[in-house]
Each structure stands twice: as structure tokens, then as C-alpha cells.
């Protein structure tokens, strides 16, 4: 019988603990009254513009450093387009080329002990920042 090596990949969506949203100043309090956690930028009102949340960027860089990743010196955002009623702008703001955090790794412990060799380290292919509807 052939020997198989198990390789798993996970796409993890994380909401960062910031006071306001990634591209707007609206609050992000869970369980708050309806229509209190959105502003004109979130509603994609004509003329509004996104402004990147400084704290979110700091958290991303901190995470990148923790997993020994490369931190990209430039931030490039792209628009991922599709029409959907809960996507007010008609696009997501996302990172395609040169995500802020790239090629990190994390040491894991298993039942057979701590794994040090590079084969058993988890690697982070990319970590991008994006707006989720």
C-alpha cells in the first residue's frame, strides 16, 4: 500500500478586536441595537471613501511577527467584484498581490512530542485583510 502524507489547509476568517471597522469609523459592538453599527461608508453612499483602520493594521503586523512571517512594506488593496444584496459597494476590498503578511510558520506539539523539523511546521501561505459583508 502507498504511504500518504496528510496535508491540510485551512482558510480562517478572524474578526479583529478593534473598536471600529476595517475601513470605516463605525463601531463593531456585538448585540448592539440595529442600525447603530453602520455609517455612510458601510452603506456605500455615493462619494464616501474607505480609510484603513490603523489598529487593524497593527494587529496584522503583530500577528505576522508572531509567526515569523514576512511583512510586506507596501499595502496593495484590490476590489473583488460581484453583485449581491448584502454587498453594498458591489465589491469587497481585499488583498490579492503582496498581502501584508506572507509565509509565516507555527511550531506545533503533537502526541509524539514537539515537532521541530521544518516538515511538521504549519506554514501560513498568506494573510490578507479584507472587508467581509
Amino acid at each position, binding site marked *: 500500500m502507498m504511504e500518504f502524507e496528510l496535508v491540510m489547509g485551512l482558510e480562517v476568517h478572524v474578526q479583529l478586536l478593534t473598536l471600529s471597522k476595517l475601513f470605516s469609523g463605525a463601531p463593531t459592538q456585538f448585540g448592539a441595537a440595529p442600525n447603530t453599527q453602520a455609517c455612510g461608508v458601510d452603506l456605500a*453612499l455615493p462619494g464616501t471613501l474607505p480609510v484603513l483602520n490603523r489598529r487593524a493594521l497593527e494587529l496584522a503586523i503583530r500577528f505576522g511577527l508572531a509567526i515569523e512571517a514576512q511583512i510586506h512594506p507596501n499595502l496593495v488593496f484590490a476590489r473583488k467584484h460581484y453583485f449581491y444584496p448584502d454587498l453594498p459597494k458591489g465589491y469587497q476590498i481585499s488583498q490579492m498581490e503582496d498581502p501584508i503578511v506572507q509565509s509565516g510558520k507555527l511550531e506545533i506539539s503533537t502526541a509524539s512530542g514537539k515537532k521541530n523539523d521544518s516538515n511538521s511546521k504549519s506554514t501560513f501561505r498568506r494573510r490578507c485583510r479584507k472587508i467581509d459583508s
Partner: protein
Amino acid sequence: METLKNLRIALDTGQFSSEELVRQIYSQLDKGPDYNAFISLTPELALAQARAADQRIANKTQGLLTGLPIGHKDLFCTQGIRTTCASKMLENFISPYNATLVEKLAQAGMCTIGKMNMDEFAMGSFNEYSYFGPVNNPWDSKRAPGGSSGGSAAAVAGGLIPATTGTDTGGSIRQPAALCGITGLKPTYGRVSRFGMIAFASSLDCGGPLARTAEDCAMLLQEMAGFDPRDSTSIQKDVPNYLLHLDHELPKGLKIGRIPAFQNRHLSQHIQGQFDQVFRQFEHLGAEIIDIELPHLDLGLSVYYILAPAEASSNLARFDGIRYGHRVKNAKTLEELYERSRQEGFGEEVQRRIMIGSFVLSSQGYDAYYLQAQKVRRLIAEDFAKAFKQVDAIICPSAPDIAPPIGESKDDPIKAYLSDIFTLPINLAGLPSLALPCGFHQGLPLGFQIIGNAFDEKKLLQLGHQYQQVTDFHLARPKES
């Protein structure tokens, strides 16, 4: 209508009040031709602002623009007043907030007379693509005023209002300024906030003033310019005093570039000679004229009509009929709601550009068109960067011809696109450019532009002001007004 400068003196010396001035503007609009330059009039707001301004003038706390009238191109969001973009899509859209530029001019004490007609979503060169009908050129009402800030230019030229705001994505301030015989400034990209300015092509859009004189444009830019934390592309750079050195003679040894090959290739035969006198005037003013070459300028048109529609197709995705704007009745499915709302809400030129933009961003168009265009855009910007090592400013015509009859270009979009051949490259390079009137052909105005290096507005305004001290084209008025 007097210049802002003269109205300032009149208000400050008590010749009349701001309220009287505002009332006089509305009564003239009631009686005379309005060239269809306005989409909305806002007398209640204007009169309230005028009374507040009169108070400030009485208390001697007025600023440069306190009590002076202004009209805003109808793509600047105005709180509580509809902002239509001259589109059926936003026919009844009322913004809950003010654009930064609107806010700044209101805080300076200006009185908002109304919202100006324009090409739908600023897409067009002759103001023929407005849901609210075409704008007439005050010099000949059968002719177009240029576009897309056609209402803004026609209202100033026709003496309805001393100044307006406009936006310039590929020439939309400078080309109508030329065709209407007025002065208009496209500032450096990032000098004026884009927040609240409904986006057409975000990397090219630029708000700026239209007025009678370079001096008036300087007064307006003084209050418009500056960093805005709500626009991440606005620049953190001090705003100089644009009025301080306007009266100074041109600096010794000033070099002005002329681009003869590019100019002659695109300028209509019958006005070829008209621009020579502009260069002669600047020689008399002490400048040295140097012939230069910018090899990639001819590609500007193709590059622009790839990049601008690409950005437009993305920026206009939000108009889907879900949250605001036109929504079709009786749609059976979500797809149908999107399709028909956008089909009904957008006019033909907007639809054409959305289709071009969607194509050049699609997987089969991206590498061949969008990416190539971005590379050529860089080459054009480098051409200018090299040129500004040789010269202090560049002068070329603002438009290749006089104002055409209304409707003439609708059958031939490429011909209409060509009318922006002289202005587009400047947006691609993100540079400032001041458009000024310089003569007439068959009774219709001609204009030229002074292009500067990034953040050289002050120099351009000084050059423009000096030119207007020795010429009187900016003082000419159409017969009707």
C-alpha cells in the same frame, strides 16, 4: 456678473449686502436665459448663508470668500439637497452629509446658489449626456458648452454666477472653461479632498474652481485645498498663500515649454495660428519659450479610455437599486432587479463606459488592456517629469477646436473623446493645470492651459494672473448675458 475679487470689495465697503447679491442672482435667473446650467436651485439655503455672512461682515470677522455666491457641480454631495450626478439613477437622491469641498466653502461663508448641470456621472465632453437635458453655450445657445462641467462653465460665462466648482477627470474643468471663455483650475491630484465627490475614476478625479479670472481661482483654491483624513489620497502638505505673489512679475529666467509636434497634430487647421500669440505674450512677460517633446502624449487618449472606464465600472457597481437610487418596478428575480434598474437608471454613455470598463478588467481583457494601459500611464508621467527638469511650465491648447453644435458629437463617440486629447495626459500624470481664455474664432472662445509640476498651483496662478493683466479675453462677455 463681477469677479469674486470685486464682489469682495463691494461687500466689504458696504456697496450692497450678501443677501442683496444673492437675491439679485435669483431674480436674474428668473428673468433671463439660464442656459439650463442648473439642476437645482437652493434659495433658502443661500439666503440663510447670506444673512449669516452679512453678520460676519458687520462684525468684521469675514474671510476671503464670506458672502460670495457659488454653485456646486451636482456630483458634490450636499446635505439635505438632492445630488443627482445628472442621472435618472440618482434623480431623487438626498445625501445625509456634505462633501469636504462643500463643507469647506460653506465654512468660509460662501452661499450655495444651486447645483450645476453636467454630463451624467461626469462622463461626456459636451454636456449632452445629462438626464436633465443639454446645457447651452452662452456664446451661442445652439452650441455645447463642453463637458463634463458644462453647467458650471456656462453659468459663469453667461454671468449668472461669479464662480462654480467642477471636477476634472480628463479635462472636465479645463475643456468647458475653454469652450465658454472662462478660467478653470485642475489642481494636483491629492491637493483637494475627494470625499463626498461622487467617484467616476478615482485615480484621476480632481475637484477645482471655475471663475472669470486666475485671481478668483486662487481665492477659491485657498479655501478648497488641504489634507482631509477622510480621503486617504489627499496629501499632507501645507497649503501656500496662493494670493501672496500673484502681482509679482514672472521670475527671471522662467522657462515655458511648447510641444509643437503634439499641438499641431491635434489642433484644428483653422485655429492653428491662434496660439502663437499666447507664446508671444509670455515672451513679452519675460519668459523663455523652449520647444520640447513628450513622446508618449499621443497615447494618452487610448490609455485614458481604458483606465477611466475600468475605474468607472467598479465605482458605479454600488448603484444596484437595492439601498438608494432608481429601482425598477415589478422585478421577479434579483438578477432582473439589478439588470433593469441599471438599464433604466443609467444613460447611454454611462452604459457604454461600464461595458468598456468591465471588458478591460475581465480575465481576457486585463493583461492585454488594463495592465498595458497602466504601464503606458507611467511612461506619460515620466515624460512630464523629464520635461519639468527642462522647463518651469508647459503651455498647450485646452481643446482642439471651438464649441461644436449641440448633438453633433453624439453619433461619433470617438470624435467626442478626441476633444479631450490635450487635457487627458495631465490627469494621467496627476499634475495641476490652469485653463485660460486666449481669443476667439467665429465669435467663439478659445482657451489654453498652463501645466505645472505637482503642487505648482501657486506658480500657475501667478502666470495666469500676469497673462490676464496684459490681455482682456477674460473680460469679454457674450451678447446675450
